[in-house]
């Protein structure tokens, strides 16, 4: 009886392993990491400025819809991407206006902005198409996939690295740009300083709120790209609540990466991996619903393990 159980389990492990080492699985890891990594970079920039941006989820969702609308009306995916980025920045503008200007509670504002986005996207979608669920009525244009010369000819590795969506490659550039921004530019120094000690920055005669505003705008632009990936690359078109928690998973990834671009990228890759794994678990006969639980469970477990390991002697108000 138990022997049977273990042999089944062993067979399952072998099956999973055989899936994991295929190039198509690793290709999908990179593909699924893209939106999480963009959201993570978005979280990172704002968090380093001392604003825990929980509304990235909402910003991505809003950008996903605006990107689709933009590309449908201009028939250009690049203008659609631009619309999505602007939509993400608009969302940051809202957050800045409420939180920095009207001094609203950050957590509650972000929660409200997420449900604002959820409602507004359906509202706009319904007004434009008469449909509440998807944007199939809009002739949107997807971002192209790019086949990279030379790399595509390398066996195995080429199948993983080449042929990804153009946004996936742009994401690599975004990570590098964020690292340069934070560590090599004046604005980056200000951003980190505001996150560490806003009083010190104010004493130096610089408005902490202004720096936070810039950081939020950058954060919003990156979240906008993430939204564009969701509706113009991951899936063709907008579906309601399509971001499904990636903006929150990003917060966990950013926390696990200590707010460092490279470490956060690795954490985002872990979540992209679990996302991809969940998509493949059905081959083991796991029900669709159980498979969909996996990425979220892994996020909770990873967050708990991470904070448990790094837990200092009882903080009163711990950060992420």
């Amino acid at each position: 009886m138990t022997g049977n159980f273990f042999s089944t389990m062993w067979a399952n492990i072998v099956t999973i392993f055989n899936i994991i080492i295929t190039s198509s699985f690793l290709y999908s890891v990179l593909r699924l990491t893209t939106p999480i990594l963009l959201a993570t970079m978005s979280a990172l920039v704002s968090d380093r400025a001392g604003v825990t941006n929980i509304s990235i989820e909402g910003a991505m969702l809003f950008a996903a819809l605006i990107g689709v609308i933009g590309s449908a009306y201009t028939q250009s995916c690049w203008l659609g991407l631009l619309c999505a980025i602007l939509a993400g920045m608009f969302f940051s503008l809202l957050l800045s206006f409420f939180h920095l200007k009207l001094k609203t509670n950050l957590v509650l504002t972000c929660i409200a902005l997420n449900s604002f986005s959820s409602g507004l996207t359906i509202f706009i979608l319904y007004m434009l198409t008469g449909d509440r669920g998807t944007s199939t009525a809009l002739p949107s244009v997807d971002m192209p996939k790019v086949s990279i010369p030379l790399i595509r000819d390398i066996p195995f590795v080429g199948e993983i690295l080449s042929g990804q969506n153009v946004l996936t490659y742009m994401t690599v550039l975004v990570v590098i740009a964020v690292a340069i921004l934070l560590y090599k530019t004046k604005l980056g120094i200000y951003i980190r300083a505001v996150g560490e000690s806003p009083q010190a920055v104010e004493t130096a005669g610089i408005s902490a709120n202004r720096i936070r505003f810039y950081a939020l705008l950058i954060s919003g632009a990156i979240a906008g790209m993430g939204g564009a990936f969701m509706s113009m690359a991951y899936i063709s078109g907008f579906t309601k609540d399509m971001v499904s928690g990636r903006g929150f998973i990003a917060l966990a990834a950013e926390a696990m990466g200590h707010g460092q671009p490279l470490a956060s990228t690795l954490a985002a890759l872990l979540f992209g991996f679990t996302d991809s794994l969940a998509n493949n678990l059905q081959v083991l006969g796991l029900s669709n619903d159980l498979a969909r639980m996996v990425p979220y469970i892994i996020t909770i477990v990873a967050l708990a393990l991470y904070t448990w390991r790094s837990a200092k002697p009882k903080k009163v108000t711990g950060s992420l």
Partner: protein
Amino acid sequence: MSKTEHEKKTGGIFEFLFTRHRTATLNAITMVIAIAIALALALILIFAVSSDPGNAIWQFLVAPLASKRAIGNILTTATTISFTGVAVCIMFQASMFNMAAESANFLGALTGAIVAASLKLPPVISIILPLVAGAAVGAIVGSIPGILRAKVNANEMVSSLMLNYVVLYFGLYILKSFFLDKGAGQVATKKLPAASRLANIIKGTGVHSGVLIVVVVIVLIYIFLYKTRAGFGIRIYGQNPSFARYTGVNVDNVILYSQMLGGAIAGLGGSVEIMGMYQRFQWTALPGYGWDGIIVAILARNKPQFVPLAALFIGFLRTGANYMNTYADVPKELITVIQAIMMILVTATALTGRLKQRLAVKEALGNDR
């Protein structure tokens, strides 16, 4: 000396409001401004998108009060979101931003339906057991982010937001694998037996005895929070965690039982909802009552005694939005947008900042005299 005599002698209503109860009054003014701005925005949006704005506004603001059935709808909606509203009040009073009321409500509803539909229970128990089961499951869900916070210091908001997805898919798995009524033609449990349905208490409306349950719950929670030692622990921890620690409050316990209690009430609300409003459980997505609970709790400023009022107001808006959705050309999601704006502005201390400053100056000058 009674209060009214006292206030007459010391400068009347203005003095009473703006000097003695300044914070409360400023909060009230902020709330009125917030609601006014949000409603104004709703009207602007309606004018922008509707081909017959007059009718849409009528359906939104007048129709919910124009018939007995409509008022009944307001009451039933208010009942549902009072449960989640009180749940969120307790969770937030312990200054834990736990968002699990949403999934606690969902799983409570499913559990209540399963217990009622699959077990053959004698009368009375057929009502009580599903309610208790819903509350118990809700307590488990609500306490998970609390345990993670208390034991490993994991941020409760991220963990609860993730938990909502986990619970949704877990619930759907359980439902589809073990409790599906194959004759229903959709994803649903078996029909609840008549003995497990909450009685209708106002003819011609959908109002069920759940409204009585929620009143009892609110009274009990009020007593718990304001008249018991454990409730005092929650409030003191929420206002000042360090102080609570120094005065010997067991902080981990406070976090745990506040989140467990909040989850239990949200779960109870779920089973009440199913037993009062539906013939069977047929939700395939999170219903959003936990989120409504957050706006209710914020409008009630986390005080259980104000929850019914806030819930009735949100219930009114929800009912109006549904009428507008059905009988006019404005989608009901308008209300989600308006609620979000309201929720943000209610916490905007800067809205009355200038008034506050002016009052402070006035007071300072007055004291000089």
